[in-house]
């Protein structure tokens, strides 16, 4: 009698026993818990919606951060000096989205910000979120893209009427530092492979220089596998066999395409976190925002997906060395996606931004 009762109680404890995994925390310095200022740029279009979401969640978690908001719009000519000064002081910024108007005359503010602060590495983390059905499985790709030179130098001129030239500039200095960042990232995050994406069979000197720098850095990390792939083959492999890629390092333009393709196969722009980082500053934003910033319908119906910016803000919390807040936020977001009850339109759901935010806040423990 007692044996069966004991086994029943044992069974009960086994079934209800939550696996106690206490995160091994780091030892902070005294005073590290003081609230940190973060520059916040809501931007235009859906930007304010998603940054509002982050603000709400941060407050619900009582995270040790406070936001200094600045109004910047995509059609301004230059980034206001006060915004740049604020970022230089705070070292960290969270950006909603700035829409670059088409048709010329205005330089992209995103590109300007990256150049001013020398944010030379842009990182997009594309991995399948459990609970989100996609056509491809086993996607776990980090795309690291050189952010300052290459095709986006903005050096164009009209030679004669009807003939326009654009300069693509590749320097050894920038290529080496992005390669170093990529290998260092792989090393620090236990990644096994770095792939360089290029088109050196056609652009022999330019992409050839990029590849040379990558090879030079690869020699210093013998534990990490390094290989090279041509960009058109790379896109083809991404849509057929994405599991072969791990960390990818690319120059500017190819990085844009590869990051958007990888984000698309892993679930879409609405859920991929990312950011831009330089030697001294970091700006976190949605990983790959392909033109959704200006979508009027999304703004009106308030159906923008806040998941990407929430996951980026988790990356930001880790960057600021608040790992347990980052873990809690990430778990809450991942649980909401796993459950599948609250989803915005781009994930084929029917909920608004606010409903998803409420669900995340409810899941924070």
């Amino acid at each position, binding site marked *: 009698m007692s044996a069966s009762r004991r086994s029943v109680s044992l069974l009960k404890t086994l079934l209800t026993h939550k696996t106690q995994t206490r995160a091994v925390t780091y030892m902070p310095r005294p005073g590290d818990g003081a609230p940190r200022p973060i520059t916040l740029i809501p931007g235009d279009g859906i930007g304010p919606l998603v940054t509002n979401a982050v603000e709400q969640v941060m407050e619900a978690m009582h995270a040790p951060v406070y936001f200094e908001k600045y109004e910047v719009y995509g059609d301004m000519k230059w980034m206001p000096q006060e915004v740049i000064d604020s970022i230089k002081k705070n070292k960290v910024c969270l950006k909603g989205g700035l829409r670059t108007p088409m048709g010329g005359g205005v330089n992209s503010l995103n590109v300007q910000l990256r150049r001013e602060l020398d944010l030379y590495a842009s990182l997009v983390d594309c991995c399948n979120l459990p609970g989100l059905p996609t056509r491809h499985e086993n996607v776990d790709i980090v795309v690291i893209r050189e952010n300052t030179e290459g095709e986006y130098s903005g050096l164009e001129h009209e030679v004669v*009427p009807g003939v326009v030239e*654009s300069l693509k500039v590749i320097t050894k200095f920038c290529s080496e530092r992005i390669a170093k960042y990529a290998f260092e990232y792989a090393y620090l995050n236990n990644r096994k492979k770095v792939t360089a994406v290029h*088109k050196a069979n056609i652009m022999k000197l330019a992409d050839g220089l990029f590849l040379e720098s990558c090879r030079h850095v690869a020699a210093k990390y013998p534990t990490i596998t390094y290989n090279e792939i041509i960009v058109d083959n790379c896109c083809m492999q991404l849509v057929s066999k994405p599991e072969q890629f791990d960390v990818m390092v690319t120059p500017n333009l190819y990085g844009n395409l590869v990051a958007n393709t990888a984000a698309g196969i892993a679930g879409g722009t609405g859920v991929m976190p990312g950011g831009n980082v330089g030697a001294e500053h970091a700006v976190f934003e949605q990983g790959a925002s392909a033109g959704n910033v200006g979508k009027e319908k999304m703004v009106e119906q308030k159906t923008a997906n806040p998941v990407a910016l929430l996951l980026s803000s988790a990356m930001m919390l880790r960057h600021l060395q608040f790992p347990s807040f980052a873990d809690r936020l990430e778990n809450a977001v991942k649980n909401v996606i796993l459950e599948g009850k609250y989803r915005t339109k781009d994930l084929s759901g029917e909920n608004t931004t606010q409903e998803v935010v409420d669900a995340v806040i409810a899941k924070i423990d």
Partner: protein
Amino acid sequence: MATQLLRRVTQILSHGNPNPSSHISVARPFSSATETIRATLFPGDGIGPEIAESVKQVFKTADVPIEWEEHYVGDQVDPRTQSFLTWESLESVRRNRVGLKGPMATPIGKGHRSLNLTLRKELNLYANVRPCYSLPGYKTRYDDVNLITIRENTEGEYSGLEHQVVRGVVESLKIITRQASLRVAEYAFHYAKTHGRERVSAIHKANIMQKTDGLFLKCCREVAEKYPEITYEEVVIDNCCMMLVKNPALFDVLVMPNLYGDIISDLCAGLIGGLGLTPSCNIGEGGIALAEAVHGSAPDIAGKNMANPTALLLSSVSMLRHLNLHDKADRIQDAILNTIAEGKYRTADLGGTSTTTDFTKAICDHL
């Protein structure tokens, strides 16, 4: 399948309007099926000769009025063309106005131009057309792909103009001209009209490269005004990549400058199953069309009767469409699609065990 039938019906209906555009000269009246047309055939290397044989057999069974003129790549550099392609071969293509090219492996070495570059420059091939549609019966992750990518083939980022400014700093020039952009835009809209397509999308990055891609877009807009029945839209390239991998059914005809075209056309080839199944056709000044198979020469399976002739066969079908032999083209295309859909005869790369000859015979039986 239903959409393909609908396309064919609209094609037949649209043939009633003769195309008045003067840029694209449809060289000769190809309407009479009894007149034999001469076409140049470059079998190429590796698996080239086997799949070329396949094409010849299928055409013979289908009674296509084409007489092949075969040319091989020489093993000596011809001083007149500075490459391994002889002057006679190029003259033959210029004379016949149509050609079919198998995979050619460029020999490594210096002192000669690459074969593809020679063909492109000498024949002034300015547009590369790749129709990408899901093959029914060959399942990939994407089932509803039905789009055409048209890529500008002569300038853009592939001008080859690079130089080292100082040590460690390299510049590469990207050139966009009004003339080339107008040419490819004209061809894209003409193609859309004659093949019953409803939408043309121009792919660009004009928010960053404002003058260069801006010029390309301006030319596309000018041409779009002349074709008011075709919807025209402009899509930024990163947005395009995202939409292609999420929902490729959104696109119809895509027209792009050189680099974006290269990447997007290979991406679309990946969506439908790879380069082994993708047809391609290069269009040159004066209505020259050179259809080609874009896969490699696969020297490891050469001579073993294992190669998949689908890419070259579908390319020859697009060559027939260029010649306005639409009923023959449709018959052959249907035969190929039905053979693959049945699944009984498939070559090794599609997961089957048939040989090239068996596959070809199955297609001939379906005709």
